Every structure is written in structure tokens, then in C-alpha cells.
């Protein structure tokens, strides 16, 4: 990987933008086989002391790098802008085209956050969608950038209170498309539940579900409640608010067409954030359970007559880097099942105290 670098202390957004344009012109003149990626602007707002950790997370997203990443590092008493722009690329093979990615780091002061739009806007690639990720809060800056943001990336599992986190998602949805990493952690589970009930002889059981239990990392209650919200919204359940089980998770119920569905969210210690398992039950004694295992999910099933079976549903763990990369990729997609799932999840948590 080769890099072209520009930096300047006490600079301005216009100078940064001009420098980027010049770097690109020079590089393209030197090698016409290099072309700038033009997919997505990713604006990230981070506390300066944690920027290394966030940079590491961004490095691990694999192939899903945004084409232009603008990292705004916030320093308490700073009043000027310092900036570093890096264009990275690999040399093209014979007859091929290689792609340039751009990363701009701008050091800003907290007093500048309320008008961060005036810093970021000139540096965005016009015509490309812009995604905003502010993992350390900085709501003032988020508010300032909302007008130029198409997609907001966030992680409801990062918040202490899942109810507050989902409420925030609901509010932000009015201004931009929300990509919630907590929602993306449920993807394999949603896919596998959909597949499990896809055979015609099993499909009818969806209307007969009597129970759903979701096991989750203690910090991933938002993922768990979003998974139940998804089931509920897809299956047309009416949800009642959940209640705390005195530190042992949450319990509640839903009314489906054919009766009540008992719901439990149970925290479970495990290394990785996200979900640990899900069990759905129907007919007396019939259930299907999916749990994390090596090389995929361990499926266990008990049918009528008590016949139990177990098998592995193959799939590699994406890891947190993979989930963040998936979050970036989702900026270009639209999942219309998220909003109703979020609404149902908010409803479930509406009476749960923090």
C-alpha cells in the first residue's frame, strides 16, 4: 500500500479540500490507472484520546472502507483546525485499475462542534451519500451535521440503557436513515429463523408460536429486543410492555392471532457482544433453539413425541470488525423491516426502568 500525505496546522476546510484535489490530480497524472473510489463519505466524530481505538476499528472493516473517511477528533480547548489528508492506494496490475481511498483527519475544538457543518461540508465529495458515526456521543455535532447526513451509523448496544438508545434511533430516523449495529448483530439469527420456518410444513407453525426466549450478552439488550421486535412486527403480534425479572433479564408477552406468546430476554455471559441464542416454541413440547457454536449456529429441535435433533448451521462469525464493515455497507441499502421492528422494540421497553 502506498500513501500520499498532506498536512497543515491551523488550516481551513477550503485548504483541506484544495489539497485533496491537488493530491488527486498529481497522483492521477503520475499514474492514470489509479482512480478515486467514489462510493461513500464517512464522517466520524471521536474524542481525541480514543481516536486510535476508533481508527483500529475502522481498519478492521476489511473491504468495506468508505471511499472518503473524514475523522473529526475533538479536543477540549482547541480553537484552530489541524488536518492531515492521506490518499492510499495499491499499484494497479497490468491493464487494470486501482482504487484510491482518502482519509482526512481534522482536529477540532469542542467549541466548534455546534457549527461542525461548516468544517465538514467543504470536505465532502459532492453527490455521494454521507454517513455519520459519532461513537462518543457529541450530540451537538451530530445535530449540526444532520442536514448533510444521509445515513447515521450507531450502536444501540453501546448505550447503558437500551430503551433510551432505541428512543434515540426513533428520533434520528426522522432526519436520516439509521443503521444500527445492534440490529445488524441480529442478521444471522433473523436469516436462520426465516430459513427454519421456510419449509411449507413448518411455515404454519409461525402462527402457532407460544414462546420466544432470546439469550444475549449483558451489553446487548438492544439487539435482543430488536430481534423480538422484528418477529413481532413480521408476525403481527400486539405487544405488552416488558417487566424486569430482577436482574435476570426481561419478561413480557404478546398477543398473536391464535393466543399469547411468552417472551423472555435473558442476559448470558459470553465473550462476544451480541446474541447468544434464541429459542422459539409452539405446540406443547415443540421447540427450536439456535445457539452460538464453532463454525456456525448449533440448531436443536424437539418435535412432537419428544424426538430431539441437533445440527450445525454453517456460517463464520463476522466479528465486531465485520459488523462495523457491514454497517458501512448498509449505507447504500435500505432495510424497510428495521423501522417497524424498532417501533415494536420501543413499545416493549416503554415501561422498563433504566
Amino acid at each position, binding site marked *: 500500500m502506498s500513501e500520499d500525505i498532506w498536512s497543515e496546522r491551523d488550516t481551513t476546510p477550503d485548504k483541506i479540500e484544495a489539497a485533496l484535489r491537488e493530491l488527486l490530480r498529481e497522483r492521477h497524472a503520475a499514474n492514470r490507472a489509479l482512480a478515486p473510489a467514489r462510493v461513500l463519505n464517512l464522517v466520524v466524530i471521536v474524542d481525541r484520546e480514543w481516536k486510535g481505538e476508533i481508527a483500529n476499528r475502522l481498519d478492521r472493516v476489511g473491504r468495506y472502507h468508505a471511499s472518503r473517511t473524514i475523522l473529526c477528533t475533538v479536543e477540549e480547548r482547541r480553537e484552530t483546525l489541524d488536518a492531515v489528508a492521506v490518499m492510499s492506494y495499491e499499484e494497479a496490475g497490468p491493464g487494470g485499475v486501482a482504487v484510491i481511498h482518502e482519509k482526512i483527519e481534522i482536529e477540532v475544538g469542542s467549541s466548534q462542534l455546534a457549527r461542525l457543518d461548516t468544517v465538514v461540508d467543504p470536505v465532502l465529495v459532492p453527490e455521494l451519500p454521507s454517513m455519520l458515526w459519532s461513537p462518543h456521543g457529541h450530540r451537538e455535532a451530530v445535530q449540526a451535521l444532520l442536514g448533510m447526513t444521509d445515513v447515521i451509523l450507531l450502536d444501540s448496544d453501546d448505550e447503558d440503557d437500551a430503551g433510551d438508545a432505541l428512543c434515540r434511533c426513533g428520533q434520528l430516523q426522522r432526519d436520516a436513515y439509521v443503521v444500527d449495529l445492534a440490529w445488524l448483530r441480529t442478521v444471522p439469527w433473523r436469516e436462520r429463523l426465516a430459513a427454519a420456518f421456510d419449509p411449507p410444513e413448518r411455515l404454519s407453525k409461525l402462527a402457532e408460536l407460544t414462546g420466544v426466549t432470546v439469550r444475549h450478552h449483558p451489553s446487548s439488550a438492544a439487539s435482543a429486543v430488536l430481534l423480538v421486535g422484528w418477529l413481532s412486527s413480521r408476525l403481527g403480534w400486539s405487544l405488552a410492555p416488558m417487566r424486569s425479572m430482577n436482574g435476570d433479564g426481561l419478561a413480557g408477552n404478546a398477543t398473536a392471532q391464535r393466543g399469547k406468546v411468552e417472551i423472555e430476554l435473558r442476559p448470558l455471559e459470553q465473550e462476544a457482544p451480541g446474541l447468544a441464542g434464541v429459542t422459539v416454541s409452539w405446540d406443547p413440547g415443540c421447540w427450536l433453539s439456535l445457539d452460538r457454536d464453532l*463454525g456456525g449456529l448449533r440448531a436443536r429441535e424437539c418435535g412432537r413425541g419428544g424426538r430431539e435433533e441437533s445440527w450445525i448451521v*454453517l456460517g463464520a462469525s463476522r466479528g465486531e470488525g465485520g459488523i462495523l464493515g457491514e454497517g*458501512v455497507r448498509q449505507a447504500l441499502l435500505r432495510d424497510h423491516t428495521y423501522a417497524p421492528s424498532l417501533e415494536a422494540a420501543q413499545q416493549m421497553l416503554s415501561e422498563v426502568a433504566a
Partner: protein
Amino acid sequence: MSTVVEHLPTAENPLVEGLERLPVHPTVLVIFGATGDLARRKLLPALYNLAHEGALPERFELIGVARKPDEDFAEMARESIERFSRRQPDPAVLKGLLGEVRYVAGSFDEDSVYVELARVLQEFDKRAGYALNRVFYLSTAPNFFPLIGGKLAAAGLQGGVSAIDRAASGIHRGASGVHPGVSGVYQVPSAATRLVIEKPFGYDLATARALNAELLSVFDESQIFRIDHYLGKETVQNMMALRFANALFEPVWNRNFIDHVEITAAEDLGIEGRAGYYDNAGALRDLVQNHMLQLLSLLAMEPPASFEANPVRNEKVKVLEAIVPPKVEQVDRIAVRAQYGPGVAGGKNVPSYLEEEGVPPDSRTETYAALRLQISNWRWSGVPFYLRTGKRLARKVTEIAVTLKPVPHIALQSSGSVGVQQNQIILMVQPDEGVSVSIGAKIPGARMRIRPVHMEFHYGTSFMSESPEAYERLILDAMRGDATLFTRNDEIEALWGIVDPILTAWRQDTSSPLPQYPAGSSGPSEADALLDEGRQWRRL
């Protein structure tokens, strides 16, 4: 970019709404020729990548069938995946994929192979508690297709047409829809049996028809999935997106605006030790009859009513049938063949085709073919389609160049520059993947001088995700029963119908000298004669 809309009925399962990966019915995949090159290099790595991404059915079983006795199939598969997979395998996923694989050894003509296969298939069904879908993938030489098909039927393994396949194909006649071998025990109306075969589908029109007839005597057309892996390439599928998702192009996509179309599939390599196959096939059979005419049909077809299998394939067949095949005696006016002679490629001296190992010294097999075709329909009447392909050419490139007609009047002076040129839309298939549009633009300066510039879209710069291997997409589609990217029997016969007179003419001509072109060049000068006056082949 995925351009083919999922066709499966999603309303029935409310949970699939919004998911990127649609469920696939539990399936057992049987690979005949499981120890062969294609299986090792493409199929097994593709299966691993599907497993890695969680795209395989929740219950998936794999059986290898091959002649080698006592083969440790799991170990061979592991080695192949580790060597050829596009990503480093995750040990746990790999172990999960290969932990339960079975291997049935024996010659494809032995009944015992099919008895054992039936036993293993039933064992899997029993373990699941219901009938798994069955996909028989014939990764074998084509002469085994009828034999294996017939033996599968004789063993009662040809299955029936599933509800999904029936819906996709528009078939309404009765079919059992259950596996006969387990009929009465595990009645699952959705279980399907499918047969996947690889090109070549026949050696000429007569053998293609015979192959179709033999396979269709035991399988229903909706069960047969003929793979042309070109159709699994994202850039090929993107042709449909380009044409039918953009108001920009379709208005000019006809004889009123398009001057001519040039389809190139050039390879810089020689036959790479495949003399046995290539000398029997030649360039026309190897690339024109299948890949290149598929590209042509996608480029020229009318918009389908939907992107389901049969509406798309119906439109492709209509275009192919609108290409009037030449009479044998007219072939030399529309087709040129040639062989590469010695030359220089990549700075190295390389031998001629006749000097390649395994090639008969008197071979008249063409390593280069160029054609001029006309589509006789309302949209394309009078627009020539030029096709060329060859081995040992100057560069590896597959592209379609659509050249628009010149502007009717040029008010701009063009002295001092190359001037106003015809617009071109270049669909780049490989090695670059994307679209390039050439337009005239003013050269900066005091004078009004024009030269062509290019507006380019490259997959690498515009999408974050990398394209999956064509086989990953196609295997998954076959397991799903989505035949959109597979070739139908009438399509195969239409394709052969176009090239059959050319093959006949070339076979009959045993005396006239075969044009030569130097290895590493742009091809024979004789091909220029196919072009109308004032036109020239695009530079490779």
C-alpha cells in the same frame, strides 16, 4: 451489483421480507466427477464460501461421486478449498462443511453406484425427517450426461418437479413432487430434484438436440440447469441493469442510433496444455457458440416483463431466433477463422498452435474466429454485430463496444485535433469491470477543438463489496431453483443453429489455406474484410 430480482414468492413466509439472503430448502448436493479439476478449483471452493457466508441451506449434505476408489474425499476437498478458495478458510466452518461428506466410488455406468447413492440419499432424508432437495451436479465430460441421467432415472432418483420449479417454468402438468425412493414415508411436496450440467451442451446442433432429447426423456426441462458461468458474472448481469434501469440508454438502443456493435473475447494465453479438448472444439465452439452469443442476446433482447427465469429466457431466445443463420456457401462472407503462428507474447517467443504439445501437425482447428451477424427484427435491422475471439492475442480483454451513429451535422471545426468521433458505450467484462462512455469534449484553449474523452464507471471504485465468484451465485441459484441465469433447451438449440452452418462449412473446407496470425498480435488481417467500409476493429 445484483441485477436479478429474486423470484421466489416471499409473501408466504413473512420472515424473509427484507433479508438479503433468502432461505434455501434443505438440500443434498451430489457432485459427479467430484475429484476432477472443476470440482477442485471451482465447485468445492464456491461451496466453502457459501458456507462461510451462511448462505447454504440450514441442512446441507454433500456427496462426491467419482471413479477413484478409496478416495479420501473430505481430505481432497479440504486441500482444494484451502488452495483455491478466494478467502482463507475458517477451520471450524471447513470442518462443519466436510465433517459429514460422503463419497461413492465407481464408474458412472455401474448400477451399484446408483444403488449406493440412493441408500445414502435416503439416509440423509431419514436423518432430517423429511425429503431434502437433491441437486445432481454433473462435473463430468459431456458424454456422460445422458448416461448418468439415464442411470439416475433407472434408480428412481430423477425425482419430480417441485412447486417452485413448476411455478418458475410455467409447467402445470402433474408431477409427483416427492422423491420416489422415500415416497409414502416423507411426503414433502416442495422437495425437488435438479440436474446441473456444464457446457459444452452438444458438439453441434444435431448432438445438442440429441442431448436435450435424452435428458428430457428422464428429466423435466424445469429440473435441468445448464450452466454457462459467464452468466454468473456480475458485469454480465449488469448489462440488464444498464439497459433496463436507466432511461438514458434505452431510447438510443436501436437501429436509429446504433451504428454497429463489436463483441470481443480475446485471450493472451495459448491453449495451456488443453490440446485434447481445444483441438476438438476450436474457438467457435469454445467461446462464440455460448458465452459470446449469450452476451449478444442480453445486449439485444427486448425488455422482459419480469426478471424471472422464463420471461428473460423467452426474450433471449427471440433475439437468437432473429439471427438468420448463413447458408453454408455464404459462410466465408460472414465468418473468418485463423490459427496462431509463432510470435512474441509478453516479451517471450511462443510457439505456433501447430507446435503446441498434443496438437496434430495437420490440425485445421481455428484458434481465432470472427463473425458478422445481423439480427432481423424491428429494433436491430441493418445493425451489424461483429464478434471476434481468439487465443494468443495481444491482450486479455472481454468487452462489448456499442458505437453510435455520427452526429448528422458538425458545425464545429475540428482541425488540430482528432475531431468529433462517434460516441461509444463500452461494457467491460474482464479484466476491467464496468462501463465507459466516450463523448466529445472541447480541448481547453482558445480554439474550439474537440476530442473524445471517457466517462467511466468501474466496479472497484463504485462498490465496496467484491463480486462473488460466478459459481457461488450459480450453485445457490440452482439450489433455489432459480433458472434465470441458466440456459434453456430451446436457447441451446438456437445458439447451435447460428453456428452450425459455419461449423459445417469449415469442416467441409479441407483444402483452402487457413489464415495465420502471429501470436501476440491483434489477429488476422482477413478479419478486417468482415467490417463495412470505414470501420476497423477496436484496438486490443
